[in-house]
């Protein structure tokens, strides 16, 4: 690869790539995001490759393994450009037919089109599918167009032009004020004003200065940062380099959680490519500005995603938070001025510089500009990664994009904000998604997990789930958080076991307010949110557990009973074999029964029965 020595050379390279690509008329883009990968996307890609070779049309058709298209539920996804014909749940055996029918013959393979389960309607083009239609993709727009290992793909789409514009046509102050004007708020949870943060780091005395990408993505149930880092690492690198230019830094760090091995690999690969191209390293594009990046891996600790803890981890120490009165803009990494932002925050930066702050401000609400990427998961029909404009309602997300609740079930709540967030009930579904609105409801935007829960989800169990998660993850440095979570977990445990006491709710509220006031870091101060929001909106469920000793959702193990519906049981014996405590018996082909004395309520028979003959009560 040639090292580019001037902005002109970047333009020439881009033209070259574009004219090379123009020769290949058809492009088959195959999603190899983690989910599609798990569904066998790689084999599909290989099948296409060999079919194209067999037919000798390799020079006309480009096969591109791209990142996540978002619609993970229906993977592997294959899109044929330029007509944007989208096939879902594609198998390797389908490659031959798609090549001969669609690519050569120009016809549609009906059976592979996406069919809306609610209306039965079929869709040919990816962007018409309701899941995509109601989204606004700006950051994510690249993901299905670039191959993560190809810097050329990114350059072809205008990548690194923002960087070129910034360092040759703008002063660092101009870049900073553009970000300030855009009113970009941090996507990592708190929604801090990114421009103001940058400015403090820029104005701080001391050198060197550092910039950091937070890709710890600790929220269990969210994966948009992973997707961005894995599938379009260059947009993050470009954003980070722009930030460094504005702040006056020459060294950056990307911190990636260890559970994301491909994100680490692709980030390292992208850095290497950008260095070879002269877009990173010494004297970028011959401008005299130098900037380089290292990648660090985490090791499985939620609290290390907190900004001050992350910095201590980067120093090679144990990742525990520091008190907030030490400002990292002045004293961050190794005591030097440091600016840290979330992956998605950085990824917005090149777009703002390219398109201008007024373009960015035209999307979103008064207080929250731009878009937000969510991982829409749980009990909805269409799960996956979505990018929506700020201000869209929760209802539109869940029903228009998500296609409603799975099965015949009723919606109960949507959880946002991860372990620091809360559960939002039905009556607030028309709330616009916005940093401040969600906080008002006792939840928060968080990093973008959006977990939909139906009537089978027990809200006390959800509160217990997050409390236990945080109990495990609390670093233990401060007592309110360490002890508070331990006690809360005990209380919730006894409530879900049917041993709760009427005064338990008061006690939970008391501990919560203490933790909010006295904890050292935001892990502790926000930890009560799941408990508080479920008490606020689902008090009746707590009461049912405590007073009636009953779990309305039939989810708490100690409060349910499993029975056999004799009219449905065929006596197949599948449950007998799988029951771990030998509690099920009965004659072959005759209705079976469960011995309640032996039953440990594990629910395996309920899961395994093909005839719905095991019922919960």
């Amino acid at each position, binding site marked *: 690869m040639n090292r580019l020595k001037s902005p002109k050379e970047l333009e020439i390279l881009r033209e070259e790539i574009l004219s090379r690509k123009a020769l290949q008329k058809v492009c088959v883009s195959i999603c190899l995001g*983690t*989910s599609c*990968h*798990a*569904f066998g996307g790689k084999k599909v890609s290989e099948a296409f490759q060999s079919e194209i070779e067999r037919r000798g049309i390799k020079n006309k058709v480009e096969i591109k393994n791209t990142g996540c298209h978002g619609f*993970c*539920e229906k993977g592997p996804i294959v899109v044929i450009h330029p007509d944007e014909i989208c096939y879902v749940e594609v198998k390797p055996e389908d490659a031959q037919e798609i090549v001969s029918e669609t690519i050569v013959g120009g016809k549609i393979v009906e059976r592979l089109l996406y069919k809306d389960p609610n209306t039965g309607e079929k869709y040919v083009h990816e962007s018409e599918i309701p899941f995509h239609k109601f989204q606004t993709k700006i950051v994510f727009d690249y993901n299905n167009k670039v191959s993560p290992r190809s810097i050329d793909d990114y350059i072809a789409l205008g990548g690194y032009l923002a960087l070129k514009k910034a360092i040759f046509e703008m002063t660092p102050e101009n870049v900073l004020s553009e970000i300030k004007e855009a009113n970009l708020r941090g996507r990592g949870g708190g929604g801090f004003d990114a421009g103001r943060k940058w400015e403090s780091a820029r104005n701080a005395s001391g050198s060197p200065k550092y910039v950091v990408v937070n890709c710890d*993505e*600790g*929220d*269990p*149930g*969210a*994966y948009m940062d*992973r*997707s961005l880092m894995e599938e379009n690492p260059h947009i993050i690198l470009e954003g980070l380099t722009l930030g460094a230019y504005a702040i006056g830094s020459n060294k950056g760090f990307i911190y990636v959680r*260890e*559970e*994301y*091995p491909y994100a680490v690999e692709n980030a390292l690969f992208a850095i290497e490519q950008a260095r070879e191209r002269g877009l990173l390293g010494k004297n970028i594009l011959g401008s005299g500005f130098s900037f380089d990046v290292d990648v*660090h*891996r*985490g*090791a*499985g*600790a*939620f609290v290390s995603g907190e900004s001050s803890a992350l910095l201590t*981890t*980067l*120093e*090679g*120490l*144990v*990742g525990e938070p520091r008190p907030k009165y030490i400002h990292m803009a002045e004293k961050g990494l190794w005591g030097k001025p440091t600016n840290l932002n979330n992956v998605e925050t950085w990824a917005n930066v090149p777009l703002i510089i390219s398109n201008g702050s007024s373009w960015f401000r035209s999307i979103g609400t008064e207080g929250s500009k731009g878009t937000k990427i969510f*991982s829409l*998961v*749980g*009990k909805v029909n269409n*799960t*996956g990664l979505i990018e929506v404009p700020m201000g869209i309602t929760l209802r539109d997300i869940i029903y228009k994009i998500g296609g409603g609740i799975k099965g015949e079930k009723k919606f109960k709540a949507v*959880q946002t904000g*991860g372990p620091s967030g809360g559960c939002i009930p039905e009556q607030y579904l028309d709330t616009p998604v916005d940093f401040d609105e969600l906080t008002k409801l006792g939840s928060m935007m968080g990093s973008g*997990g959006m*977990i939909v*829960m139906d009537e089978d*989800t027990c809200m006390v169990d*959800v509160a217990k*789930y*997050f409390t236990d*998660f945080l109990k495990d993850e609390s*670093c233990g440095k401060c007592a309110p958080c360490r002890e508070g979570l331990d006690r809360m977990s005990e209380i919730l445990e006894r409530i879900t076991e049917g041993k709760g006491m009427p005064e338990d709710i008061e006690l939970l509220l008391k501990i919560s307010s203490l933790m909010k006031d006295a904890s050292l870091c935001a892990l502790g101060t926000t930890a009560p949110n799941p408990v508080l929001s479920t008490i606020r909106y689902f008090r009746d469920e707590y009461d049912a557990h405590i007073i009636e000793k009953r779990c309305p959702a039939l989810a708490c193990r100690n409060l349910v009973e499993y029975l056999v519906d004799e009219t449905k049981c065929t006596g197949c014996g599948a449950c007998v074999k*799988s029951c*771990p405590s030998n509690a099920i018996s009965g004659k072959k082909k005759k209705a079976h029964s469960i011995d309640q004395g032996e039953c440990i309520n*594990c*629910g*395996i028979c309920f*899961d*395994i029965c093909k005839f719905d003959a095991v019922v919960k009560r």
Partner: protein
Amino acid sequence: METFDTLEVDHIIEKYGSDRSFLISMLHDVQAKYRFLPEDVLRYISHKLDIPLINIYRIATFYKSFSLTPKGKHQIRVCLGTACHVRGGQRILDSLERNLGVKTGETTEDEKFTLERVNCVGCCALGPVVVVDKEYHGNMEVSKVEKVIEKYS
């Protein structure tokens, strides 16, 4: 006489330019090589990088990814992130515990499998998810557990 190949460990240390701030990454590589963090290796690193052993020990015990006892040949990680939790991940974990005869965090006697729970592996749309080594098994069901174990036996 060392109980391990010092050259290999030197290689890991040099890969990160003997830079102490990369200690966690080095420990990851050590763990990948030995399937745990052997005491001798930690002592060696402590000596080479001039980091007090207590600091290394703190890191080795603070983070969930590290283990001071040998892990199994295959690592089974059951996701209990929120999305997988609401879709029944716990039952999958229970079933694996019973099938393997170990508790979460333990290694089977034949050192074939280590069973772990993790919080979100980043493909929530497929929940519940089980990851064995680097392979993802999505939409897991209790009835599929045995087959998954067999595949690696």
